[in-house]
C-alpha cells in the first residue's frame, strides 16, 4: 500500500537492520543481504480509520494490512467464553496478491495460518479482562513475497496495541531458512522456494517466549537449535521497528496508558544501520 500523497499521517519508518556485531562470514545472498540481515521493514500503525486498531507492514515486498475490532460483543453469542475474551484471527489473501490469481474463497492453508496466528498472539493478550467478548484480528495480504505469516503477526501485534488492547508483551516474528547448508534470516519469495528448510518463529521479547514455531525441511537437532536462536535475533530486530512505529504514534516513551504492558526497550537495540531496498 503506497502512501496517500496528500495526507500527513504519523510517519512511517523505513529502516533496517544489519546485525550490530558484523560476523566474520562475508557470504552474501542473491539480493546482497548478509545471512542475518532482514529485508527492508516498514511498519505504520493507525492506518485504517474504521478499525479499532490497525497496522500496515511492508516486509520485503510483502504488503499487508492488519485490522483489529474489539473487545466487542461476541457474535454468535454461544461462541463466547464466560471467563475471558476470545481472540479470533482471519488470514486472507487478496486475489491479486499472488501469481497466478487466486480465488477469494479461503483455502486450507489460510485456515491453518489463521489458527497458528491465533496461537502466536494469544499468549500476549490479557484476555481475562474482557469476559464474553471477542477480539477480532483480520489480516489482508495485498502482496505476498514470502514469509507472509511472520509479517502478518508483526502487523497484528502492532494493531492490537493500537486498538488499546492490554498486552503482556509484543509479539515479533521472523523466519530462518537453510540454503546451500547456510542458515539465513527472513527469506524472500525467491529464497523460500528453493530453500532446504523454512522455520517461522514468533517471539515475545520481554517474556522470552516462543509463541509460533513451525519448520519444514531438514535440520539436525543442533541446526534446529541454532536456527531458533538466529530467528529470535531476527525477532528482536523486528521488535525494535514495531516499538518505533508505536512511538511515532503515541509519543516517545510509552504508547498511551491503555496498553500499559508495552515492554521497555531492550538494552541491545541502540544502533540500526539503514538499508534501502534494491
Amino acid at each position: 500500500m503506497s502512501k496517500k500523497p496528500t495526507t500527513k499521517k504519523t510517519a512511517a519508518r523505513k529502516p533496517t537492520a544489519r546485525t550490530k556485531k558484523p560476523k566474520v562470514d562475508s557470504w552474501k545472498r542473491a539480493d546482497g543481504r548478509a545471512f542475518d540481515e532482514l529485508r527492508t521493514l516498514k511498519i505504520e500503525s493507525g492506518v485504517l480509520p474504521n478499525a479499532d486498531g490497525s497496522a500496515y507492514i511492508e516486509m520485503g515486498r510483502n504488503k499487508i494490512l492488519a485490522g483489529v475490532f474489539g473487545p466487542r460483543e461476541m457474535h454468535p453469542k454461544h461462541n463466547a467464553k464466560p471467563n475471558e475474551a476470545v481472540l479470533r484471527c482471519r488470514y486472507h489473501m487478496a486475489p491479486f496478491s499472488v501469481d497466478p490469481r487466486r480465488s477469494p474463497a479461503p483455502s486450507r492453508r489460510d485456515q491453518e495460518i489463521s489458527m497458528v496466528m491465533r496461537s502466536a498472539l494469544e499468549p500476549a493478550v490479557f484476555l481475562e479482562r474482557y469476559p464474553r467478548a471477542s477480539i477480532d484480528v483480520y489480516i489482508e495480504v495485498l502482496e505476498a513475497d514470502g514469509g507472509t505469516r511472520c509479517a502478518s503477526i508483526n502487523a497484528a501485534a502492532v494493531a492490537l496495541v493500537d486498538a488499546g488492547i492490554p498486552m503482556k508483551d509484543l509479539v515479533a516474528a521472523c523466519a530462518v531458512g537453510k540454503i546451500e547448508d547456510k542458515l539465513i534470516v527472513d527469506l524472500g519469495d525467491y529464497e523460500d522456494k528453493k530453500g532446504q528448510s523454512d522455520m517461522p518463529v514468533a517471539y515475545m521479547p520481554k517474556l522470552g517466549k516462543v509463541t509460533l514455531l513451525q519448520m519444514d525441511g531438514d535440520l539436525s537437532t543442533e541446526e534446529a537449535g541454532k536456527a531458533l536462536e538466529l530467528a529470535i535475533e531476527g525477532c528482536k530486530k523486528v521488535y525494535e521497528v514495531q516499538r518505533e512505529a508505536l512511538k511515532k504514534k503515541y509519543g516517545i516513551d510509552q504508547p498511551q496508558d491503555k496498553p500499559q504492558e508495552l515492554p521497555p526497550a531492550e538494552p541491545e537495540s541502540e544502533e540500526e544501520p539503514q538499508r534501502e531496498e534494491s
Partner: protein
Amino acid sequence: MSKSNIVSHLKQKKITEVLSTGKRMDGRAFEDFRELTIKRNILFKSEGSAEVWLGKTHVMVGVKVGTGTPFEDTPDEGVLMTNAEFTPIANAAWEPGPPNENSIELARVVDRGLRSAEILDTHELCITVGKLVQIVFVDLYVLNYDGNLIDACGAGAIAALMGAKRPTFSEGKPTGEKVPLTVRKKPIPVSVIKIGDNFILDPTADEEDVMDARLTVTFDEENHVCTMQKSGSEGLTVDEIKKCINMAQGKAPQNRVKAIGD
C-alpha cells in the same frame, strides 16, 4: 444501509437539517467531491493496479491476466471478469464471508460500465480460437469504507486497466513478453443520492446510510451514457432523474482526469 433503527433516525434528522441550510455535515457543497487520489501500478505481482482514496474511502484495484476457455458463442474472444470484495477491515459491521448483495451490486455496476463501453479489445485476448483465451480479472478490494464505493472503484478500475500489461502468445505459446492492454474507452461512473429533497454527489457512509435513492450514471469520453443504475428504497420522478444525470455528467470529466493521469 437500512433506515430502521433509532440511531439511523437521529442521524437522518441531523443530516437533513444541515442539508436544509444548503451545506453538508463535512462542510461540502452539494456538488463537491472529496479529494480523489489515484496511484497506479503499485503492486508488482499484478498485471495492473490502482490504489484509490476518496476522502476516507480507500480501495485497491488489482488486474490479473490469466488464461481459460472462451465462451461457446464467442470462441475467438477473451473475457473480462469483475469482482468486488468487502474486506472485514473496511467497516466494523462487515463480516468475512462470500459476496453479499451489496458487494455483488458494486461488482455488477462497475462491470457493466466496463462492458457497455466495450472497453477491451476482446479479440486481441484470443490465444487459440475455441480453446484458449486470456481472462482479465479486475478485483475491487475495499480497504476502508466511507461511502461512494462505485465512483471510487469505477475510476480505479480504469486506472488499473490503463496501466496493465498482458503477456503475449505466439502460436499458443507464451512469448515471455508483455504489452499494454488496449483500453478503448474510459467510462467513469458518478453517483447522485437523494436525501429528502436534496441531491448530493459523493456521499459519505453516513449520508448513504440515510439516503432515499441513488442514481449512478457512467459516462464515456463523449459524455454519452454507458450505464445507469438506480437503487435505494424510494422512487424518482422523471425530472429528478434528468437532474441526476446532469449533475453526474458535470463531474465525470474531472474524475476521468484523475483516473488516467495527465
